[in-house]
């Protein structure tokens, strides 16, 4: 009975965690579709959580802190795109190395301002309900709902608005989009900002569940790329399914075994996918 309870709780955690992962990795997929191999994506998630922590600590309102973190990280993203990546565009290997350098910058800025000790944000709601004799916090269900709403909104934005059409056109064929009069350069900046904002939302939403730490960005980068490669690079649907799959896998295996083994299992899944379907499960 306890075992079943653990599996159910692990499964629930997995769904919540998978939806948060989906927010972050879909942000990454958007950035990757512009040929920007951004290995500092996890750092945007981490810096979002850190900014959220300070804003919520100062203001006392969770949701306002979330918005502040989102807009600040979007601005940081724009700065990176304009200031660093734009100067070396069309040379992905240099972009890759530059974003690798950004990892060190973000990690140590966080270490200087936030410190090395892990800290948690208080959840905006403390209610819980009981399931199989365990108390399950209502906040997590709420996070899952918010993630679904954001993902739906993103879908409508990308597939039902003119701006979304522009984004899809510019990432599919840059020169052709430019010839059609789409402001591709501006679109790229806004898309990068959107991807960064999604990562930071994931960061703030997850920080009442898992503690914020300066080193968590790199772990997220690793997880996000595992998901992107499993799902098929460039496929939004694949990314979403990959995120839920890995979230579920890590949720259940951390509940039954331990987090290190859970990460190993994700790696093994990646290796199996690389051997069987090197282009990912849902590649175009």
């Amino acid at each position, binding site marked *: 009975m306890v075992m079943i309870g653990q599996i159910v709780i692990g499964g629930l955690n997995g769904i919540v965690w998978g939806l948060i992962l989906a927010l972050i990795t879909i942000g990454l997929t958007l950035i990757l579709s512009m040929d920007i191999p951004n*290995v500092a994506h996890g750092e945007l998630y981490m810096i979002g959580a850190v900014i959220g922590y300070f804003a919520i600590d100062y203001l006392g309102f969770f949701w306002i802190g979330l918005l502040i973190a989102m807009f600040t990280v979007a601005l940081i993203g724009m700065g990176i795109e304009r200031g*660093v990546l734009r100067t070396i565009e069309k040379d992905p290997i240099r972009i890759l190395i*530059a974003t690798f*350098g950004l*990892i060190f910058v973000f*990690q*140590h800025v966080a270490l200087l301002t936030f410190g090395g000790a892990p800290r948690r944000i208080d959840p905006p709601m403390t209610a819980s309900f009981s399931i199989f004799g365990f108390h399950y916090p209502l906040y997590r269900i709420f996070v899952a709902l918010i993630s679904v709403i954001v993902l739906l909104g993103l879908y409508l934005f990308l597939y039902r608005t003119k701006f979304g059409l522009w984004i899809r056109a510019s990432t599919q064929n840059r020169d052709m989009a430019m010839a059609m009069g789409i402001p591709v350069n501006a679109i790229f900046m806004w898309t990068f900002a959107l991807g960064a904002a999604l990562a930071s939302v994931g960061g703030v939403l997850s920080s009442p569940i898992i503690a914020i730490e300066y080193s968590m960005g790199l772990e997220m980068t690793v997880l996000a790329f595992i998901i992107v490669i499993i799902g098929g690079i460039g496929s939004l649907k694949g990314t979403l399914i990959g995120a839920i799959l890995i979230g579920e896998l890590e949720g259940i295996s951390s509940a039954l075994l331990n987090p290190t083994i859970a990460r190993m299992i994700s*790696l093994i899944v990646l290796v199996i996918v*690389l051997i069987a379907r090197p282009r990912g499960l849902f590649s175009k």
Partner: protein
Amino acid sequence: MRERYYYIGFVIAIAVIALIQPFLNYFYKILVTQILIYSIFAMGFNILFGYTGELSFGHAIFFGLGATVVGLCADHLSLGFLTSIVIATIVALGAAWLIGFFAIRVTGLYFAIITIIFSQIIYLATLNWKWIAGGDDGFTFRIPSWKIMGMTVSFHNLQIAYYFGLLFFVLSFLLYKRIIDSPYGKVLKSIRENEGRASVVGYNVMRLKLTSFIISGGFGGLSGALYAALVSHYTSANLFTIAVSGNPVIWTLVGGAGTVIGPVIGTGIMVLFIHFISTTIREYLMLIGILIIVVIVATPRGIMGSLITYYRRKTENEAMA
């Protein structure tokens, strides 16, 4: 003719390093030994990045494995210096083969990203499973001394370490130069210049990239093994971090990727630079990050690359005039 100048310069440089040893104080002896050993790491990385055009952000795996295998050999099996180093290098080669075997399946830049994934998960494993490298605390060990004709050669003696570092540096450099100048090295360069054409001409590009990754991993393992056996006598999970993977990237970039001597010069400059700033600035890794960005944006050719282009342009102008 130019080749001969290179060799004369190389012999003079080695002779100078060998002769100045007695005049250096304790810290400079350690620094020079470190630079010599780290250069092996950078040279290996240059074969992959500079000559094949393939990136790896996970070279800490091989450096850390080299150091850890030497530690485990000395601690549990009390194996001698040379045996441990040979075993450590073979283990690193094996690990590079295994990781490269999986990573090579994705195209282009995702190769580098797979190396990050592997390196971070191996770091997580070494951090939590203390039997590998002692976790965050690590462990120290003693390398058994050699007894030759009544003399004792202790690897905990700094002068011995200095000359052994120099010896291995020279051997590795000759091997590295031999690889680059060989037909194999020329094919690697052709992959860097135009992968599609190299494959159309009939070269097995995947296989060549994989062997280049394995060779470069082997150099990394040797460097880590020598570092643990001669300098630190210590290993820990921290040798597997992204900061260690970043080292050969910045060394090679500063010195000049794809130039023979560039990585060695880059290593020398950066090790001295970090030695001096780390005493005053605590978060010096942030500076390393900024430096990586500045170098890649402003001068991706590095010091040697820029010098070579400068001289080439100058001689061309003189020929025209």
